């Protein structure tokens, strides 16, 4: 930052969070909006890149850590959450953000998602949901509509009702649950900011259109609408979801409870751990 003006308007610092790597996402991908919002949120919160760690699984959206200047770890498919949880409990001073897509998070990593909601480690989980496996060229994911026939693997549709991530998170007792839209990056930045500041497990489902395999999702712009009012009442949140068309945005549920923080007093140092890995002849 050079000028006084740049110092006064903090969000002009969003560029400090963008790396020099060019995203390999398709032109027009919703994930560009997510990257844009995330860098703005981190600038608005005045985070230091060296104190943020972004952990991702596998998939188009899981590439996002590479496009930022924060620390990143590209883990195995569906395992962003356990990796992020391990880091968050061992380095509580860091801001830990797990990222991924609907396949990575709700199918391969579905079990981890449930237990991360219950465990309530202090971290943020951003899922870029486009209801398709994009990186493997367009197969149905857990959130795909049951009558989608766009893949030769499911030519007559999946015949399975799509998974509802917000209902699942609420049932599994996640304390912060929200939905946002990638094409509204400023509102998305607001929700991300609240999620990152929340003390505990904060889950944000981000509707992020896949322009290549689900071009009809460009119509989401007309369907997305604000509507959730944050509540700490689970029954009220379930009631709100019973009327949900899948396109309501906002913070659905925010009910702080003590985050899981294991006692660090018995922490074993690295030298002790290394002794267990000694190679003996």
């Amino acid at each position, binding site marked *: 930052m050079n*000028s*006084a*003006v*740049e110092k*006064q*308007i*903090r*969000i*002009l610092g*969003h*560029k400090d969070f963008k790396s020099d790597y*060019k*995203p*390999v*996402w*398709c*032109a*027009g*991908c*919703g994930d*560009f*909006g997510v990257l*844009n*919002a995330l860098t*703005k*949120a981190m600038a*608005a919160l005045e985070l230091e890149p060296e104190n943020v760690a972004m952990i991702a699984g596998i998939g188009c959206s899981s590439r996002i850590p590479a496009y930022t200047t924060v620390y990143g770890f590209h883990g195995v498919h569906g395992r962003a959450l356990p990796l992020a949880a391990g880091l968050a409990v061992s380095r509580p001073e860091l801001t830990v953000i797990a990222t991924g897509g609907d396949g990575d998070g709700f199918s391969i990593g579905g079990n981890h998602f449930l237990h991360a909601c219950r465990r309530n480690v202090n971290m943020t989980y951003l899922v870029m949901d486009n209801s398709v496996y994009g990186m493997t*060229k*367009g*197969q149905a994911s857990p959130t795909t509509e049951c009558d989608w026939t*766009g*893949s*030769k*693997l499911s030519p007559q549709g999946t015949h399975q009702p799509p998974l509802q991530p917000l209902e699942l998170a609420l049932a599994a007792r996640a304390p912060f649950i929200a939905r946002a839209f990638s*094409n*509204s*990056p*400023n*509102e998305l*930045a*607001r929700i991300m*900011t609240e999620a990152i500041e929340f003390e505990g497990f904060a889950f944000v489902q981000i509707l992020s*259109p896949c*322009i*290549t*395999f689900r071009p009809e999702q*460009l119509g989401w*712009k007309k369907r997305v609408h604000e509507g959730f009012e944050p509540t700490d009442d689970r029954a009220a949140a379930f009631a709100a979801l019973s009327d949900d068309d899948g396109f309501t945005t906002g913070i659905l549920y925010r009910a702080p409870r003590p985050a899981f923080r294991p006692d660090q007093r018995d922490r074993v140092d690295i030298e002790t751990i290394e002794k267990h890995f000694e190679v003996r002849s």
Partner: protein
Amino acid sequence: MSPSKDLGSFLAHAVVLEDEAATRYRELADAMAVHNNPDVEALFCKMAEYSDMHRAEAIEHAEQHAGGLPDLKPWEFEWPGDESPESGRLESTHYLMTPFHALQLALEAEEGAFAFYNEIATRTNDPPIRKLAEEFAAEEKQHVEALKKWIAQYPEPPENWDDDLDPPVPVD
């Protein structure tokens, strides 16, 4: 804090509008580079450079404002839509888009910026804001006219411009 009521807020909007326009053009240029579309990449890079120049001009105006600028958060800016009006629409892009399409996208963005300033100039009761908004609207109008002339130099692409002999179809 409304840009039509507070000069600091107006100037903050002007700086961020150009900043976000430049950022978006660079995102689009990067996407075109990745998809081996060098002509459109070069064009978006040029548009980003123009936005950088306008950003510097907006900062110059802002630095002359003694009252300082408000530190607005992204969602506190009062844009007419979901994003600042000069940010080219992401969903209007395609990896095979031609310079004609890129210039159309830029034209839409510049028209958005003109409408934004023009609306403030019409609505505000604050003479200094009106003066600056009229000045900025006039500049955006010039950009619109320049882009229209530029577009006229490019033939409209054929209907099958997005045909791909090796399309990203499902492989299963």
